[in-house]
């Protein structure tokens, strides 16, 4: 364990930025200043997140503030996701929000609070990923709801207020379950360990999990899964998700779907790790697998029938979270690694698609797919980005979602769930159909004559371009550092401390180096 200032910096950077933004007046020059602070804030989070990740890749375990904050490989994955996706969607926000301001959808005061809450939201999510204190973890997840509720209801329309209300109520209630689960876990540990101070740390819980009372551990996991599963978007607790995702401004939808769901999943994964150690893998795997499968089975058809682009994407998020849960549910090093990798990959691809939906909104002023026609003709670059985003989320190669879906599938077969995997694969075919429908109906085709030609600005397209590059690069080769992080994180989750239990499907310790060696040949293929 290494004491480090990085966790504190990444935590308080965006918090300070949020406070600063709230102090700046929203008139005239103030808005520019706010945008500047916002940009500095998101850039700082990105840089610090990657610095943390690179320290962790080198084998460090960063801690701060009496171990209340700690970043291990598992946390580092999610911190980097926040950093990268937060930065790119934050950049995208600049041009998107300016557009909304010009169109009169938002007024300067709302723009100001948008940026303020954006940084606040980042702060709460970072807090959730680096908290080692389990109560703090709960506080952070609850705070993400509160921080993002304004962002969801930002437009102040009837529908957005409704969405924000459902979001707040369902999530706070859900997370109240999480609190109960947390309390049970803590009480369990402090009773067994006889030390009230250290029992509150996740690291201590994980280290002494075998001593916990099994009945309470199970009960606590059920509560936690219901609670944080609500936030993660697992069926049947996902009722808030389509509303919130569709009503929020597009960059926020990207952040919700790409990052927030994953933060909640991280907490679920942390308790999953404890429970696996305390009562063995069967119980937690079984309920996670059931919820995951249900999510896929329910979300896939609902995804297909939606007419609203962003609702469609929201259901697709439920489906992919379901797949991550299935990965955890089939368990074993392979399943857990596949789930973690899918979490990363889905974040990137979904952020790309939600930003794309923002472009659609800027061009067509509607999310109704029946009225969005011929994007490729009026805005060619957006069209291409959306096209590739759809193909990526449909799970086709050479995009990253394909890789991790395949890994989950392999893990499932290894664990003996052949038929279940076939069922999931079939339902994912419905997803392919849905995305093809989007491309065929809205990206291609002839635009209505009234739609003005011309793409959205470079400032909006550049972050999406970067996302697409990331989606392709991680699809063609899993970069060494990610491989390393996922491997180490899997060992943390499964509790296998033996060094050979490196978690990739093709399990050997030397893997990252060899990928680096074999990589360049393939790079020529993508970079040409």
């Amino acid at each position, binding site marked *: 364990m290494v004491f480090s200032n990085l966790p504190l910096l990444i935590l308080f950077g965006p918090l300070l930025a949020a406070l600063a933004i709230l102090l700046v007046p929203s008139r005239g020059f103030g808005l520019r200043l706010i945008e500047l602070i916002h940009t500095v804030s998101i850039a700082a989070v990105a840089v610090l997140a990657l610095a943390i990740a690179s320290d962790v890749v080198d084998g460090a375990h960063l801690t701060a503030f009496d171990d209340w904050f700690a970043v291990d490989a598992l946390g580092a994955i999610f911190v980097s996701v926040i950093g990268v996706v937060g930065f790119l969607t934050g950049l995208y926000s600049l041009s998107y929000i300016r557009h909304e301001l010009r169109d009169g959808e938002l007024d300067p005061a709302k723009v100001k609070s948008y940026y303020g809450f954006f940084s606040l939201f980042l702060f709460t999510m970072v807090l959730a990923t680096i908290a080692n204190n389990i109560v703090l973890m709960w506080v952070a997840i609850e705070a993400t709801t509160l921080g993002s509720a304004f962002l969801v209801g930002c437009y102040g329309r009837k529908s957005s207020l409704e969405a924000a209300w459902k979001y*707040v109520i369902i999530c*706070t*209630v859900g997370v*109240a379950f999480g609190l*109960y689960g947390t309390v049970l876990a803590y009480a369990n540990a*402090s009773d067994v360990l006889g030390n009230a101070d250290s029992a509150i740390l996740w690291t201590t819980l994980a280290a002494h999990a075998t001593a916990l009372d099994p009945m*309470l551990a199970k009960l606590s996991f059920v509560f936690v899964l219901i609670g944080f599963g609500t936030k993660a978007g697992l069926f049947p607790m996902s009722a808030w998700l389509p509303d919130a995702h569709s009503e929020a401004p597009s960059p926020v939808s990207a952040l919700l779907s790409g990052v927030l769901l994953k933060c909640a999943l991280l907490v679920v994964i942390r308790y999953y790790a404890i429970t696996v150690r305390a009562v063995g893998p069967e119980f937690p795997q079984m309920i996670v697998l059931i919820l995951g499968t249900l999510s896929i089975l329910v979300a896939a058809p609902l995804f297909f029938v*939606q007419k609203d682009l962003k609702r469609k994407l929201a259901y697709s998020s439920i489906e992919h979270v379901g797949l991550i849960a299935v990965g955890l549910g089939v368990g074993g090093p392979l399943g857990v690694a596949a789930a973690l990798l899918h979490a990363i990959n889905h974040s990137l691809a979904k952020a790309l698609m939600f930003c794309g939906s923002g472009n659609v909104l800027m061009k067509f002023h509607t999310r109704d797919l029946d009225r969005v026609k011929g994007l490729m003709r009026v805005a060619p670059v957006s069209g291409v980005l959306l096209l590739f985003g759809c193909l990526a989320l449909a799970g086709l190669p050479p995009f990253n979602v394909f890789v991790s879906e395949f890994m989950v599938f392999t893990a499932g077969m290894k664990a003996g769930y052949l038929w279940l995997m076939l069922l999931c694969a079939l339902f994912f075919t419905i997803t392919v159909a849905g995305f093809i429908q989007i491309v065929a109906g809205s990206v291609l085709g002839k635009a209505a004559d009234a739609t003005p030609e011309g793409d959205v600005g470079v400032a909006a397209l550049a972050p999406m371009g970067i996302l697409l590059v990331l989606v392709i690069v991680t699809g063609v080769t899993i970069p060494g550092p990610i491989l390393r992080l996922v491997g180490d994180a899997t060992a943390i989750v499964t509790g296998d401390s033996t060094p050979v239990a490196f978690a990739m499907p093709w399990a050997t310790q030397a893997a990252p180096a060899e990928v680096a060696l074999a990589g360049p040949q393939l790079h020529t293929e993508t970079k040409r």
Partner: protein
Amino acid sequence: MFDFQLINGLAGLLIVTSLLVILSRGPANSARFYALQSFILVLTFLALAKETGSRELYLWSASAFVTKVILVPAIMYRAFSKLDDPRLGSGETMSPAVSVILAAGVVILCFWVVSGVALPAAEAIKPALAVSLAHFFLGLACIVTQRNILKQVFGYCLMENGSHLTLALLAAKAPELVEVGIATDAIFAVAIMAMLGTRIFLTFHSLDARKLTTLKG
């Protein structure tokens, strides 16, 4: 031993007050009953603190008194007394009698669940523990069955009180900061919900959850 009985008794009172919160007419009334309930919760904490000799719990009682008995009800009272949707009545979708029977059922179920827990610390206070769990679910039931969106906020508060009590019962020596974190979060949650609720009332001119049906599918 006597004090544990006191604790269990106080916990029983909590159930009664939460029924009052759920069934009373108008959000402002509920806010008063909620303050009452929180006061009983603070008393429970004090009793527990005396029994276990936990210094932290005394601190808790103090902070809980400030946040739950004063701040939260005040916020709600201020925000909600201006908003009233007389068409809704108490907003309950079930008759009071059914609600009470249901509550009783929940309590019995919770007793049964708690009886399976084997922690030594939980031995003497099992009834209170069961009550705290039941309290949690009563809050949930309130949210599910209520049409009045403001009353749904109270549901959340009840759930939160339930978990708070469980924490105090099972882990009396938890660090003070934990308590502060939970309490602060609850205040923020209530404040944000109150704000959203107000905006919904101003936009929809109603507090009926069934009117929130634009988004479907």
